[in-house]
């Protein structure tokens, strides 16, 4: 059974960390979009997106991430993506997004404190 989709905003970290688990697809991506846009609107221009618990990710999810990255960069920030599962990394690779996002394999490497 696939893990249930969840989003957790971790308080007290700089930059803020948003941790996602489960499957991000056309059904769940809107929740992630809303969360990312809200955090950016609150004034956080750089965000660490922890995808270590993600079991599946499709083009809808990638579209949301690209949109959020553009918003972050418009206000002088960045979107750091943390991903380690080879299946998820492969999706970033085949879409060329490893050259677009700052990708790390751990929260520490992404600069989350």
């Amino acid at each position: 059974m696939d893990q249930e989709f969840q989003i957790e905003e971790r308080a007290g970290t700089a930059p803020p960390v948003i941790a996602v688990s489960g499957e991000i697809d056309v059904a769940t991506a809107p929740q992630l979009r809303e969360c990312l846009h809200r955090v950016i609107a609150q004034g956080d221009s750089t965000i660490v997106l922890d995808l270590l618990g993600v079991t599946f990710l499709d083009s809808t999810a990638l579209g949301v991430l690209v949109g959020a990255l553009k918003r972050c960069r418009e206000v002088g920030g960045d979107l750091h993506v943390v991903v380690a599962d080879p299946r998820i990394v492969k999706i970033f690779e085949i879409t060329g997004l490893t050259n677009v996002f700052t990708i790390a394999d751990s929260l520490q490497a992404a600069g989350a404190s």
Partner: protein
Amino acid sequence: MTDRADQLVTGDRIELRFPARGDLIVLARLVTSAISARAGFDIEELEDLRLAVGELCLLTLHGSDERYGDLCLELTVLGDAIGVVCTLERAAATDVPAPEGDEIARLSEQILDALVDEHGRESQDGSVRAWLRKCRGGHAG
């Protein structure tokens, strides 16, 4: 069907029909996993097909109004390959484009280019048809 209940062979065909809503694409992915395993695809190929069929459904729905139509998925075992045809019947164009819709369609095309051997999309007379073919042990993926 075949004489072994847990295997599929050339010519076996499975159809799935559901309302053309994005949140139901998970059904297409689940069926694809089950069919791919029974057709002899290994776990990596199975994961590739699961993702690819989801993208095929998204491409079929791209630009359409989710309040109308049915999505029909046909999976056919073709020797060492699986052919998948996704058809949106009674399609209606949406007045409200999805956020990042064109970007998502471009990403879907890239994913399919990388994971399957052949794919395509065509629309005609109010229906949209997208298809793919993936071989076992092939170059794609």
